[in-house]
């Protein structure tokens, strides 16, 4: 971990320069430029269709840009950067008829547990144990993945993404379908994990209050980066109007705390 940390301090985790993406001639991203230094919890906000998910897909190498450049840890070949990335999707495409247990799902992530079918449960648990204790999913190991509540599933997805000790964590609207108390504890968990493991986190989110509370830096996106800065700077009426195109009430910040 420490070697990886030193390495990551020397290279910027995310650098995006003049990124453009169009679908059927319709531009979705129109020249996005930003960079994210190590150890930040960055939120990407914006209205539906503003290109948040497209941008995330570009970072993962799933969407080919029309033009522009992306570098992850100084690497233009994004495939080579994938081992240093953790990804938490909105949801899984699992059908309820697929009885994949949480233990089996987590075992898919590590090379040493990839033979889960032939391994005993005790062996798999021992190999997974270290990360699981952090996230609090040990009680869920025997449960089928498709039957977890939204909040439980998100915890499992976080545990899954942290198993390989990534340096960059990308989250795509991770609390869609999670109730408010669940959301609160989820964002708390992300913030804790980010501090503990010195991670760089990029979070696509609709939830402005959670962004205000936990993010260290915010990018408001609407085809281009409309504004960026600290949550206090970005989450005000004028900036939000720029990003969302309509009047959005800014988050009222009642409790002073440091970011």
């Amino acid at each position, binding site marked *: 971990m420490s070697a990886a940390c030193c390495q990551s301090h020397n290279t910027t985790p995310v650098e995006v320069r003049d990124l453009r993406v169009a679908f059927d001639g319709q531009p979705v991203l129109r020249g996005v430029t930003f960079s994210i230094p190590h150890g930040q919890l960055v939120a990407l906000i914006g209205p539906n269709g503003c290109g948040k998910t497209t941008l995330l*897909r570009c970072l*993962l*190498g*799933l969407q080919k840009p029309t033009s522009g450049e992306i570098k992850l840890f100084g690497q233009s070949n994004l495939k080579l950067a*994938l*081992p240093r*990335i*953790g*990804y938490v*999707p909105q949801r*899984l*495409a*699992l*059908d309820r*008829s*697929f*009885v*994949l*247990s949480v*233990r*089996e*799902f987590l*075992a*898919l*992530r590590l090379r040493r547990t*990839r033979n*889960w*079918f032939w391994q005993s449960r005790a062996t798999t648990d021992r190999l997974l144990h270290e990360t699981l204790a952090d996230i609090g999913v040990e009680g869920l190991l*025997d449960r*089928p*993945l498709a039957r977890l509540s939204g909040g439980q599933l998100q915890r499992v997805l976080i545990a*899954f993404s942290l198993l390989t000790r990534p340096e960059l964590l990308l989250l795509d609207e991770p609390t869609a379908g999670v109730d408010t108390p669940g959301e609160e504890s989820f964002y708390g968990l992300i913030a804790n994990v980010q501090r503990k493991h010195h991670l760089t986190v990029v979070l696509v989110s609709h939830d402005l209050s959670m962004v205000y509370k936990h993010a260290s830096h915010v990018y408001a996106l609407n085809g281009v980066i409309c504004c960026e800065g600290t949550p206090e700077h970005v989450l005000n009426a004028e900036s939000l109007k720029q990003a969302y195109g309509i009047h959005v009430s800014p988050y009222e910040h009642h409790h002073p705390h440091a970011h």
Partner: protein
Amino acid sequence: MFPRMSTIIPMLTEPFVQRALLAALFLGPVCALLGVFVIARRMAFFSDTVSHSALAGVALGFWWGFAEPTIPMVGFTLVVAVAMMWLMEKTDLLTDTILALLLSGSVALGVIILSLLHGRNYQGELNRYLFGDILAVGWEDVGLAGSLLVVVGVGVFLNLSSLTLLAAQEEMAHVCGVPVRRLNYLFVIVLTLTVALSIRLLGIILVTSLIVIPPAAARSLSRNLRQQIILSIVFGLLAGAGGTLLACELDLPCGPTIVMTCVGFFLLSLGIGKLRQEKTARAGVA
């Protein structure tokens, strides 16, 4: 009603029964193993479309002068499967629309060619392929089924984690280093070959049931994927072999008898699963 040992043993000396039984013993587990991932990825209609497209392959084979149209059948189903994948990737058409288009188009093409070749008597030929024909299973079909069992068994277990990740979430699979596109095409090609080679025994209409029903039956009794895979294979094996023996003993059509054996396993496991659930719920309340 059910076959007795005294009647099974002489029956097993018949070469056509031996061929059908071996084919069923090989194809049952292959279909059931792939089926776990087919139902997880909601691809049952995909498999149905592939099997129906075989009719056009068979008809084209007869038209081109093949006495045994296995090669054109397999070839045509592979073309249809790759066309399906390509249309899904490259067009905005809904998956259901693409599948319905190719399914009905292939069946219509097959029936027209068969009617042109056989005049009004094409129904007999059609029925053999629609519902399967135990007498049509040759030693070469048995050899192909055996090879398929080895290739699919080894292939699936070597790529079990990647296939499971693919079923769970494609983007996540990509981040974990799974070659998503390549594995998707490979899975579809293997599934298509399995469907095409199972048609002799089960028939175009019924082949999907041997893929879908064993894992669905296994689901009610499983607490994890390992159990579901093992039980699904066992159900596939028992339904294939048991159904074939029942069909021979009772002089019933083989494909439908195998399918009804699968349905029997499904109902049985559903009942046991429900009883087990109620017992757990009662224990929880107490």
